[in-house]
């Protein structure tokens, strides 16, 4: 039986895949412990989990969603969230790792504090990558900026010979919750031993009530969602979608939006603040979303074509991947008008190739081993001895 230490940031899209993988490991009798912000996400862990709380030392605020978009949100995420948290987590995480003595650490790619601790202690460790945007090179300047951010952090904590360009990616295994054909070959990847396992799938989500008899048998059905982070951002996008759908009475749409918008909704739009997303995806003909990595993979797994209206973080990159794969249409989140939205919805429902490409990708996604495959990869690492058999470290690329 292996001892496995998970550490992930307190963000739903990062926690859910980890929960699914940990379920498989626990079911096989392995000893799983969590180093997490217990006050923020402790209630989402299974009962009787072994938890080392990180919030005692850390007052990491919940990631709020300031009204930034595009590259600005990437800068904010690094400079104001991930890196300061990594710095504060180094000492507590090292103490936890020394106390629990894991055979292997499982570290989310946006929890680099855990990656540095594993490196310092010579522990085998795997990176969990929850978005394909994180494995791609950007421009030389942007890559150098990221490396520079990590360099300062590493120099304050690690011996110089342990410093690398991208400490967030494990030299043992980087487990990517996607399929290789989504990032494709258009953009160069950062060097790392990637294993593509496909989506972890949504084990462990709580049940949500839904009025299923609202659907008419003869309608075309859509799910419209901007995800949990951007749902409450502003209402313009939702109002535009409602105006467009008012002109398309043959379509019925469930829109994940603040309840207050229900009063303005035309009869063919149902506004709900929470929905059972996976069950809904089994019923609809298409999806309008923000290109969040999880939502895109869940929709494609069911062969559903998408309209993608990316807003922030990795969303523009994920949106481009699924458009280039032929399974999605682009929508400009902050600019789209009712007329353009109506034309896009009509194109979504009347362009057979979109569905064909979505079903092609869906077939690949469903064949991928998912959380069970990720669990197997982790167990392989657990049998490696500490320190001695570390794989060759990637050479330190020169950082500007």
């Amino acid at each position: 039986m292996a001892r496995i230490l998970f550490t992930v940031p307190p963000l739903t899209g990062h926690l859910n895949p980890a929960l699914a993988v940990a379920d498989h490991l626990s079911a096989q009798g392995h000893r799983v412990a969590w180093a997490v912000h217990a006050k923020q996400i402790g209630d989402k862990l299974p009962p009787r989990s072994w938890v080392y709380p990180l919030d005692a030392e850390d007052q990491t605020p919940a990631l709020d969603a300031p009204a930034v978009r595009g590259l600005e949100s990437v800068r904010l995420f690094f400079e104001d969230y991930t890196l300061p948290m990594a710095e504060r987590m180094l000492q507590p995480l090292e103490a936890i790792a020394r106390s629990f003595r894991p055979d292997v650490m499982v570290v989310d790619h946006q929890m680099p504090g855990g990656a540095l601790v594993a490196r310092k202690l010579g522990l085998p460790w795997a990176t969990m990558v929850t978005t394909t945007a994180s494995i791609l090179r950007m421009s030389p300047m942007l890559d150098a900026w990221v490396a520079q951010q990590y360099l300062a952090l590493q120099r304050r904590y690690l011996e110089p010979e342990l410093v690398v360009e991208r400490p967030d990616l494990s030299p043992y295994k980087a487990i990517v919750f996607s399929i290789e054909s989504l990032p494709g070959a258009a953009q160069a990847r950062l060097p790392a031993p990637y294993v593509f396992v496909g989506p972890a799938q949504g084990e462990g989500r709580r049940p949500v009530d839904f009025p299923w008899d609202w659907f008419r048998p003869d309608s075309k059905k859509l799910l419209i969602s901007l995800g949990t982070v951007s749902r409450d951002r502003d209402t313009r996008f939702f109002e535009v979608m409602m105006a467009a759908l008012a002109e398309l009475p043959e379509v019925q749409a469930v829109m994940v939006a603040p309840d207050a918008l229900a009063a303005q909704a035309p009869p063919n739009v149902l506004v709900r603040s929470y929905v059972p997303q996976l069950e809904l995806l089994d019923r609809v003909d298409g999806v309008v979303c923000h290109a969040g990595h999880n939502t895109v993979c869940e929709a494609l797994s069911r062969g559903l074509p998408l309209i993608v209206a990316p807003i922030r973080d990795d969303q523009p990159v994920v949106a481009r991947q699924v458009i280039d794969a032929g399974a999605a249409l682009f929508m400009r989140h902050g600019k789209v008008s009712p007329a353009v939205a109506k034309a896009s919805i009509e194109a979504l429902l009347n362009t057979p190739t979109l569905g064909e490409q979505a079903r092609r990708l869906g077939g690949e996604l469903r064949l991928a081993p998912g959380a069970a495959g990720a669990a197997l990869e982790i167990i392989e690492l657990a049998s490696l001895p500490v320190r001695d058999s570390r794989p060759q470290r990637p050479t330190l690329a020169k950082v500007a």
Partner: protein
Amino acid sequence: MSTTPEAILALLTERIRSTVNEDWIQDFEIGLETRFNDDLELESIEFVKIADAIQAHYGNQLGIIAWLSGKSIHELIGLSVGDLVDYIHGALQPQAA
């Protein structure tokens, strides 16, 4: 072929409108202060198309993409139409002997 900043701005504005090709952009006021990221929500693939069109127009490799890839994240976030006009204007000047 005019290479004044005013002419470059007019060309750039026209290329932005035709590349975005959505209803809102036709009346959207585009000036030197207009930012590609915040004000236009331009996709990077659209920026590349616009750059290619400008370079084709002047029959010249202006090196716009190389110039862009040398920008820091802070510069990219705030990149404006005026920044690009300035760069193109500079790149079109005959080299001093």
